[in-house]
């Protein structure tokens, strides 16, 4: 078993500068600080038109008529398209279930659904033309929650479902249901000395990436189209776009434009098909850029959830059983809901040992905004609830909440509720120990010789308190997230690697279709190539569909899977290069034939360190290029009735300690510090690892105290689609985030690494909630916490 801090054995590459384990700097850093990095919204083409989408103003309605005549007559308008103008029989798209209309067909199912698209020569002309399109709606009652969705006479959000989940769900307004039953929870409950129950509510969170949905579609001479776009997965987009356009996939070329953050919100299509349709219709390049208002309607959100939990424990704190029901609101279209259900159910127990469980997770079809992927993906909502339960249980037992967690913490060898053994390190108790051992921030930091520094108090520069009514609280949480695509998905990636001599120097070029969304995959790919090929110069080719799929930049998977593909392909290239060297120079030194050979610092060396030759000489006049796919261990589907199956690839763990100060009179919260300890397996780039952990932690903080899309329960309309009304943490809202990184190798993963991007988003939120509970003594069963929940005026 790997020991604390022991890196995976590396022979190849340990001598090459800029390889894995170093905090090398981003290759795109200079372009990003000079303003020259070309994001999708920066694309420009001579003669280009601007596209605009007309979206529904109501949530659920039949479309009686659409009149585009006045809009079409406006000078500067080149084209307007509705459902009737779609070129083929394929008029829907979707990640797993093709239930999402490209343009509304006789009916809209949520507020902000695309109804018509316009192309014009100025964005304002396009906007005004869209506003002149007359749509006559006949409104229908709205489905907004579990009760209205599953009522016997409920209107069906989707009539005549025939997708692969429709056969096993208890109601057509349920997208997917996943039960997990293991042991006998009812029987085990009899052993419990204490039972705690809770009903929890998780609000709808937005990814709020800063770069708006945008791209440029350029028609090509062969009748195809070239799309420059910000996305998380080029090949998934391609698979959904081409059939709607009626084009073979090779006539839809896609290049990744600069991506201004993603966090799950770019897994689904947004403007891709619309821009291509308008470009093909007008014969001109078409650019579409959402503004922030539209962005809130243009991508799926994190599922809001209701969670019902029951935990039992013996007097000494050992968990006896857990029962839960998790109801996720999937909104009007399926998006990633089925997979979110799989995650929520399979991770609903948290990082704890409980043998007897009775679990059920469902996602609903409603007329609320569609929900799908967001960082943490189903595990976030569950973690919020089970960690609240742990605190409740600790209080009931009179135990320290960290001790209770440690007592029940899973470890390597624990069997998950799905029956899957955890076969790599699971240092749950250790992460809690570490985060608890960090020094606490001093009390009353706001005090200074000149009085209170309001910037460090709840309410901040609003100057609402100088310390009166302010109380401090500390809270802990820990979580478990799966890494990679689960449930039997063929989750592969592809890399093409070339080695050649340029200007007398050996150079490697790495070409993948991986979407760099800010996470630093491009940095890591260059590091892997340096380590595996012993060169310092690595060129990262722009991501496009001229190379095989890299899979999605999501599920914390890219360093593992595309990193794994780059590593694997580099190994194949290295073998070829060594063969070449043996052929060219083998006769000069016997070690070419007998020794194990490595590529280090631009040279071929023996494992004993003897230099046999320069890579530049080996590669002179030659190019070695290989494209190869790579797969992690296969997974299995969860049984539809029992939830049993080896469904996940790898697990990822983080723990948080939150320190908050609460102005109890006004209900304002200041998070003072949010410390995190996380096991990363192997930090390929320590600087980026810490950056990911701090960023994920802050998104968790956001949904603890401020972030929520408010949907009117009577109309299902979104009430706060702007950064004025949907608040994300500013630098004043964000505390210091000390990070303790643990590196326990997972022997199944490349370099022993563990996917890291999501785990810190899980435990951050419940840690903040626990700290607020600790400060105020309130129960607080929903997140985000708003002032009225703290002042009793809700």
């Amino acid at each position: 078993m790997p020991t604390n801090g022991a890196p995976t054995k590396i022979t190849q590459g340990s001598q090459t500068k800029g390889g894995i384990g170093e905090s090398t700097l981003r290759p795109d850093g200079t372009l990003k600080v000079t303003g020259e990095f070309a994001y999708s919204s920066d694309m420009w083409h001579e003669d280009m038109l601007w596209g605009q989408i007309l979206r529904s103003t109501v949530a659920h309605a039949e479309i009686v008529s659409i009149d585009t005549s006045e809009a079409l007559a406006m000078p500067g308008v080149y084209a307007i398209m509705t459902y009737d103008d779609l070129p083929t029989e394929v008029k829907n798209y979707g990640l797993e279930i093709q239930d999402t209309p490209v343009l509304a067909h006789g009916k809209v199912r949520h507020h902000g659904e695309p109804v018509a698209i316009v192309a014009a020569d100025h964005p304002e002309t396009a906007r005004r033309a869209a506003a002149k399109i007359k749509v006559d709606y006949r409104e229908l009652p709205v489905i907004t929650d579990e009760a209205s969705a599953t009522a016997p006479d409920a209107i069906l959000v989707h009539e005549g479902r025939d997708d692969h989940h429709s056969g096993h769900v208890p109601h057509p307004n349920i997208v997917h249901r996943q039960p997990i039953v293991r042991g006998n929870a009812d029987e085990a409950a009899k052993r419990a000395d204490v039972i705690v129950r809770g009903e929890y509510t998780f609000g709808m969170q937005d990814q709020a990436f800063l770069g708006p949905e945008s791209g440029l579609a350029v028609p090509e001479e062969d009748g195809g189209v070239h799309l420059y776009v910000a996305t998380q997965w080029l090949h998934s987009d391609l698979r959904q776009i081409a059939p709607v356009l009626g084009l073979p996939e090779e006539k839809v070329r896609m290049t990744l434009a600069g991506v201004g953050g993603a966090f799950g919100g770019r897994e689904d299509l947004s403007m891709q098909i619309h821009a291509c349709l308008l470009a093909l219709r007008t014969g001109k390049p078409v650019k579409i850029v959402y503004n922030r208002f539209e962005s809130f309607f243009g991508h799926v959100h994190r599922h809001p959830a209701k969670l019902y939990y029951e935990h039992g424990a013996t007097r000494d704190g050992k968990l006896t059983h857990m029962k839960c029901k998790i109801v996720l609101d999937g909104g009007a279209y399926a998006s990633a809901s089925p997979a979110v259900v799989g995650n929520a159910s399979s991770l609903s127990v948290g990082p704890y040992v409980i043998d007897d469980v009775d679990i059920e997770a469902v996602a609903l079809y409603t007329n609320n905004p569609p929900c799908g992927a967001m960082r943490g993906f189903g595990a976030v909502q569950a973690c919020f609830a089970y960690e609240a339960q742990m605190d409740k249980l600790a209080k009931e037992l009179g135990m320290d909440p960290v001790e209770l967690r440690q007592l029940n913490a899973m470890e390597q060898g624990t069997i998950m509720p799905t029956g899957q053994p955890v076969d790599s390190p699971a240092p749950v108790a250790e992460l809690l120990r570490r985060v608890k051992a960090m020094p606490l921030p001093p009390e009353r930091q706001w005090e200074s010789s000149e009085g209170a520094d309001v910037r460090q108090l709840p309410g901040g520069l609003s100057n609402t308190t100088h310390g009166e009514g302010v109380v401090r609280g500390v809270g802990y949480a820990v979580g478990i997230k799966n890494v990679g695509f689960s449930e039997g998905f063929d989750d592969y990636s592809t890399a093409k690697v070339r080695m050649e001599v340029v200007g007398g120097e050996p150079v490697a070029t790495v070409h993948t279709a991986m979407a760099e969304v800010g996470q630093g995959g491009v940095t890591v790919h260059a590091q892997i190539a340096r380590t595996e090929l012993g060169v310092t110069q690595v060129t990262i080719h722009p991501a496009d569909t001229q190379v095989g799929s890299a899979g999605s930049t999501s599920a914390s998977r890219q360093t593992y899977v595309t990193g794994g593909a780059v590593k694997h392909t580099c190994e194949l290239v290295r073998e070829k290069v060594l063969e070449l060297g043996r052929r060219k120079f083998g006769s000069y030194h016997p070690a070419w034939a007998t020794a194990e050979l490595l590529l280090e610092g631009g040279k071929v060396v023996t494992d004993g360190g003897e230099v046999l030759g320069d890579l530049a000489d080996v590669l002179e006049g030659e190019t070695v290029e290989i494209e190869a796919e790579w797969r992690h261990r296969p997974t299995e589907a969860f049984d539809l009735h029992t939830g049993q199956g080896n469904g996940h690839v790898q697990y990822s763990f983080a723990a948080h300690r939150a320190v908050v100060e609460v102005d109890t009179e006004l209900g304002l919260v200041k998070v003072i510090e949010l410390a995190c300890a996380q096991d990363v397996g192997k930090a390929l780039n320590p600087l980026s690892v810490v950056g990911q952990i701090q960023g994920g932690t802050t998104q968790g903080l956001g949904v603890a105290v401020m972030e929520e899309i408010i949907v009117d329960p009577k109309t299902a309309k979104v009430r706060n689609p702007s950064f004025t009304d949907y608040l994300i943490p500013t630098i004043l809202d964000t505390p210091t985030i000390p990070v303790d990184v643990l590196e326990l190798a997972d022997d199944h993963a490349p370099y022993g690494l563990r996917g890291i991007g999501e785990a810190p988003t899980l435990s951050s939120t419940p840690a903040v909630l626990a700290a607020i509970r600790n400060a105020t003594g309130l129960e607080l069963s929903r997140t985000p916490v708003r002032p009225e929940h703290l002042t009793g005026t809700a």
Partner: protein
Amino acid sequence: MRVNFTVNGRPQEADDVWEGESLLYVLRERMGLPGSKNACEQGECGSCTVRLDGVPVCSCLVAAGQVEGRDVVTVEGLADFAKQRAESGCATGACGTTLQDAQQWRAKGTDSQTGEGGELSPIQQAFIDAGAVQCGFCTPGLLVASDELLERNPNPTDADIREALSGNLCRCTGYEKIMDAVRLAAARQSEAV
């Protein structure tokens, strides 16, 4: 309408500007300067921050017509702006920039293909070195705001930094590395004195 103004030290003339266009739109779509970003276009995120006669503003909230005869510095001109400031005898950067200074300098072009030809300003280098750049969409606005902070206050406390950058949203970093970058730039600036 026609708008005459100075961008990064160069006189510019924008024709056929519609009265409703923002300075941000003119910079991005008419001047070929997309470095100022369009994350919210409602003055909440700060990604479009530029200096207007030395004052940091959200260029999305400035009507293009309002900049007639005025001076704009964008992220594209930041390096030369900082260099000119240093050469004008103000190594700490704490002397501010007079309008006259702002009008007398001129950004050197960089090669748009390679990025070569341009040196980075201290704050730009610090953002790269500290790991403050992830997706980078907030970066241009934060650079302009941070540079202005360090010009005013070469030794800011953490609370000063947070206050000065509170109008700039970042969704990737959790701000810790941005704090590091500003501290690093301040430290390097004071070492250089």
